[in-house]
């Protein structure tokens, strides 16, 4: 309920500036020490010869929501795409540095990108359920493509994942309908269900609400707060209010002079929004630029 004010304001299209942040949790629970789930060390990412990320290092805590904010083109998406090695899918793209997930370097020479992606889920900007598959087939697509055909197990996983994605009640009667027949918000939750069906250690979300209307956005945000109990979530967002609403920690990124993305400031969401240490962070969150 603590977000009701923002919710309403957002839905009515009002601007809140400077952003007032209600701290989501008490500071102690936020700062409770836990082993980092993801450690990024001196990460550089390239598209051909163009450097998109400049020496980014940060630690992501397990079972928490980390928001990555910053203006367009600052490398937010590139950063999360490096965490499941989707970055290198683009022609000519490459990365250097270390990314440790549960202590293992996913960029080690013997690391298999397919296995990395198997354990790190991703939700994209545009809802992308497979168009020729039903709702049910979409949820278990990853498992079936892995060769699992035990119907009972698949049905269990499908129901559990759909419940976790807060979609079960809405689709339980249309499991055999095409996934494309759902609304945009439902499609995005279907994609979340599809990702968590693989029981990933980390769930990456690349602007998951940017193609959705405000009501669907709120549903996804509620869902993110629930999923935080089971997954380590990293969410890229354009929307600062959204970062303030859903995240425990926030990373702020900017382009440097050569247009490469840099991590400017990283801390608890409350601190970033109420007491930014860097002038540029302050400028961005108060809406002076970006």
């Amino acid at each position, binding site marked *: 309920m603590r977000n009701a004010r923002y919710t309403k304001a957002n839905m009515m299209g009002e601007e809140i500036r400077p952003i007032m942040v209600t701290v989501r949790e008490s500071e102690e629970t936020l700062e409770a020490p836990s082993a980092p789930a993801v450690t990024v060390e001196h990460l550089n990412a390239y598209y051909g010869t163009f450097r998109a990320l400049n020496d980014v290092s940060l630690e992501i805590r397990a079972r928490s929501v980390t928001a990555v904010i910053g203006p367009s083109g600052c490398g937010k998406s590139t950063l999360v795409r490096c965490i499941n090695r989707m970055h290198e899918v683009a022609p000519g793209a490459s990365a250097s540095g270390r990314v440790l997930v549960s202590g293992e370097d996913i960029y080690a020479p013997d690391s298999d990108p*397919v296995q990395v992606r198997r354990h790190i889920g991703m939700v994209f900007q545009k809802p*992308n359920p497979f168009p020729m598959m039903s709702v049910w087939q979409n949820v278990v*697509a990853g498992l079936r493509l892995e060769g699992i055909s035990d119907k009972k197990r698949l049905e269990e996983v499908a129901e559990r994942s759909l419940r976790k994605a807060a979609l079960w009640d809405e689709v339980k009667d249309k499991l055999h309908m095409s996934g494309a027949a759902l609304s945009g918000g439902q499609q995005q939750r279907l994609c979340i269900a599809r990702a968590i069906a693989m029981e990933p250690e980390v769930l990456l979300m690349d602007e998951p609400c940017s193609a959705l209307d405000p009501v669907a956005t709120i549903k996804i945000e509620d869902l993110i707060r629930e999923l935080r109990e089971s997954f380590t979530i990293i969410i890229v967002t354009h929307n600062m209010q959204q970062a303030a609403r859903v995240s425990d920690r926030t990373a702020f990124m900017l382009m440097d002079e050569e247009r490469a993305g840099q991590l400017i400031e990283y801390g608890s969401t409350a601190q970033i929004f109420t007491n930014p240490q860097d002038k540029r962070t302050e400028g961005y969150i108060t809406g002076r630029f970006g």
Partner: protein
Amino acid sequence: MATQATTVAPKLFTRQSIRGQQRSRQLVDKLMTGLITTCAALAVAMLLFILVYVIIRGAPALNFAFFTERPLPMGEVGGGVAPAIIGTLLIMGAAALMGVPVGIGTAIYLAEYGRGRFATIVRFVIDLIAGVPSIVVGVFVWALLVRQVIGHFSGFAGSVALAIIMIPIVTRTVEEVLRLVPDMYREASLALGVPQWKTIIAIVLPTAKSGVITGVVLSMARAGGETAPLLLTALGNQFFSFDLFQPMAALPVQIYNYAVSPYDDWHTKAWGAALILIMVVGLLSFITRQVTRGRGLGGR
């Protein structure tokens, strides 16, 4: 639509000049709409005309014997084109078995993997083959298979010729539809930890399925009507033959032989065979669509 616009417009725009502009714009709109509708009607009319005319001229030749018996020597009444029907099905079946996988494989290479020089060369060569007249393909296969490797005319040589004609058609249409599959589905699949080859087979191809089938059917229809390469390779056969490595009858060849004869009865038979060829091609595309129906990953 148009009536709606004229009743609403005066309320919104009262100035004379604007109304004048609107009137001329509506006139042009009607004119152009009429023009393109005429084009569409013309295309459909041509197709219907061909179909109706072939039916009118060919139907008198059709009877049970025409479908089941072999052709008789000139002067004898009756007989049919059964060996040619069988030959066409066998030759086209073998051609599809060779041409479709190669064509789809090439298309996958070009759309999903091919970058740089080699892909450019492949694309260029495919375009080149597509531009080669079919009789030249026939001459090539004749020189290679009929003269050298096999040593005589055969249905198989005809299949090879037809496969060569099919490959560029399949490749270009399938490559085109694979490119139409949005990258977001490939990314969704890769991000689930699905290897690229599996992503292509289980996600990309099924998503593009109807386009892929259209390409295959199109190529079969095109190859099914080819006469020149078959004259030089399969030759034709007045007797029943199921052996692909012997000379084999085929409908286009049969039509040709009947059509160039001086006998009215044979001319009617040529029309009848043409009607059957249309039916065979239609049937093949129908079967292809039926066989490949259903969702990519199968039912639940």
